[in-house]
């Protein structure tokens, strides 16, 4: 048991289970299947964004523009739907990740070709993309009645007990797991972040790897643009503002090293669910939204401290021979 708890993902899962059962003593029904499904559905967008963020972070980069990308893309598809209600829905659903990928490619290009630090690039594009959403819409809202019912309903349609939105998140989790563990590109992301120099020596093009990671993150953010707008049935400039920090927080809580090269899909998903559970539980047990933000913040700092300690421990073993014996298979 103690060994199992050393595994970051299992530990996090146990903490989430404890939290849920703790909350259900205060708020009956919190642990009911319907409410859990609801929390998962609520967290779906964060999970998708966090998986993109994770891919970028693995390569020793960061993408702060995901929420702005979501906002612009969401606005673009909502306005397209409002202006041309006859366009097939499939086209719009393809358009969202397409626009997102393009915006991600801009980030990736600046990082790769111009060698600008990712945090600077995406801090810039964060403002630019949000500004573009404002220019596009002129600051106006796109409301539910302007959008086609099918456009709005698809993500909420329940299939086998879960809304399509949740199913999309599940598919993307599987896809991300597949890409990161079964494709050479996935290995390249871990290697580029784990040791960029060693990656270059091993024949990996780390610039290209980072570029692709940004494109993926952008495409997922774009897809979330459509999902967000249809789920909340409204598009305006400030949607999902600040969510980029939630995605980073989810990654950090999930044990993804901010220095790159370490992390799993399960970690990112559980980190997102952890935040999702807190966000859903605190109002139920009567804690003010202001305290919620403080609590999330404390959890994030604790997670970073925890990560830093875990990483330092791993580093110290390098100097010692007995390190190898400490690890049993």
């Amino acid at each position, binding site marked *: 048991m103690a060994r199992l708890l050393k595994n970051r993902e299992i530990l996090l899962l146990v903490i989430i289970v404890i939290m849920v059962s703790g909350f259900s003593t205060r708020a009956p029904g919190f642990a009911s299947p319907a409410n859990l499904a609801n929390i998962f559905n609520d967290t779906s967008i964060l999970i998708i964004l966090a998986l993109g963020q994770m891919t970028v972070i693995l390569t020793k980069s960061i993408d702060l523009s995901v929420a702005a990308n979501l906002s612009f893309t969401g606005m673009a598809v909502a306005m397209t739907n409002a202006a041309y209600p006859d366009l097939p829905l499939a086209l719009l659903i393809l358009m969202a990740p397409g626009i997102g990928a393009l915006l991600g490619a801009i980030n990736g290009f600046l990082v790769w070709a111009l060698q600008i630090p990712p945090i600077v690039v995406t801090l810039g594009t964060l403002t630019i993309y949000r500004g573009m959403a404002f220019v596009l819409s002129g600051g106006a809202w796109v409301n539910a009645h302007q959008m086609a019912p099918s456009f709005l309903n698809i993500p909420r349609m329940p299939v086998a007990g879960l809304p399509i939105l949740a199913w999309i998140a599940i598919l993307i989790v599987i896809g991300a797991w597949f890409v990161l563990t079964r494709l050479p590109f996935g290995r390249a992301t871990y290697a580029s972040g784990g040791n960029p120099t060693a990656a270059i020596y*091993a*024949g990996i093009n780390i610039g290209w790897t980072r570029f692709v990671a940004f494109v993926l993150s952008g495409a997922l953010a774009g897809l979330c643009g459509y999902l967000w707008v249809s789920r909340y049935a409204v598009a305006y400039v400030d949607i999902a503002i600040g969510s980029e920090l939630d995605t980073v927080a989810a990654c950090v809580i999930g044990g993804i090293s901010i220095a790159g090269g370490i992390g799993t899909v399960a970690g990112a998903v559980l980190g997102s669910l952890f935040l999702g559970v807190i966000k859903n539980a605190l109002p139920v047990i009567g804690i003010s939204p202001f305290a919620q933000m403080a609590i999330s913040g404390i959890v994030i700092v604790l997670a970073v401290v925890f990560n830093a300690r875990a990483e330092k421990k*791993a580093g110290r073993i390098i100097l010692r021979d007995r390190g190898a014996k400490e690890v049993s298979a």
Partner: protein
Amino acid sequence: MANDLPLPEAETPVLEMRGISQIFPGVKALDSVSIQLFAGQVTALIGENGAGKSTLVKILTGIYRPNEGEILIDGEPVAFASAQAAIDAGVTAIHQETVLFDELTVAENIFLGHAPRTRFGMIDWRQINSRAKTLLAALETEIDPTIRLRDLSIAQRHLVAIARALSVEARIVIMDEPTAALSRKEIDDLFRIIEGLKRQGKAILFISHKFDEVYEIAENFVVFRDGRAVGHGRLKETPQDLIVRMMVGRDVKDVFPKVAARIGAPVLSVQGYSHPTEFHDISFELRQGEILGLYGLIGAGRSELCQSLFGVTRPSSGRLALEGKTLAIRSSSDAIRAGIVYVPEERGRHGLALPMPIFQNMSLPSLSRTSRSGFLSAANELALARTYAERLDLRAAALSVPVGTLSGGNQQKVVIGKWLATRPKVIILDEPTKGIDIGSKAAVHGFISELASEGLSIIMVSSELPEILGMSDRVMVMREGLSAGLFEREQLSAEALVRAATGNI
């Protein structure tokens, strides 16, 4: 008194180190070393790369605390608890790579950390600038103390570093290869400054590879080899040959398990390889089953040459042919595909992604071979890793543990295994046994020999003479980016290689 009496041997040294040992995990960097420094005299510290000179400097400047032994200043034992304690005790150092701040002014650089204060505890700018001016004037230079460091030339920066070292009340000055970046004229200026310091009665420890300089400026010498002080005395009474022999030491050829391999046709041919700053006009041939040793001092351009052969950097001119076919290597993946691989010097920095499992590190350059129709195959990767782990006798709990949990020797095996797994034709080993213990060294040497006898062509970069002498079929020596000679095995001698590498013909 004007008569020059020889200094009595009983004179108390300003600084004395007795029986100093410094032990790092797996390596004894210094083994009960004793040295003495005298007022008004320069003592030269001579030794190969890795002989323990830098460790000694770090002990004297309070960065390392020795495991054994004592340091005495004026006969009184002292212990340096920190770098500041060493400065307070009167020890100052001019480091090999000057550690200064580009964006600060000259005066700020000189007084950083010990700036004079006003009565109110504020930094006394007027005094900083005027004292900096005085210090620089003493060094016979007219650098304006108020300009930023980045506007100075390399040599001027060096003078600032010297001024910084002298800005504290120091009686013991350590100079770690101070001439490495200087031209002949600047070296002359530096020597005038050193003469001035001698007249002020300072005790100087001067570290250099260059014998002509050592004989020019120093009175005494200490030779280090493998962490031990193997000789000391007065330079005036000691011929250069003797010092070279002390540096090189033993006759070790038979310790190395070099098997006479059958040497075949040329595999790799390099013609006129040049780089804008690191090396110029390097040509050589490497034959099948041959071990070509690449010897030289640190900074001679050996690693840089190897990196460009491997496509990490690009040469500005030159031609490379593998098995008679001219190749244009633009990236490391080109090199790997062609069959040239490079095992870098610093395992942690260049060789391994420490958080990743052993088998993933090993398969990283071979993924195109282990993958099935574009998908990674863990089974194939594990099989590949297992093959080479067995061959190299890798000791690990499991192939799925992170490489970071292994010892240095085993990490080195992972690096070598990773490159062998690409089935190369030419393998470049950069300092293959640096920082690993004696036992693993012998195993690595045996293995290198075995590879050569299997027909692999090997370039082995090494700063350790015994290793170069014991393992190489031929040796190319590099000095300051140029080829300083190719030696056949029959012509190999430690003296010849050291002479070629240091330019002391």
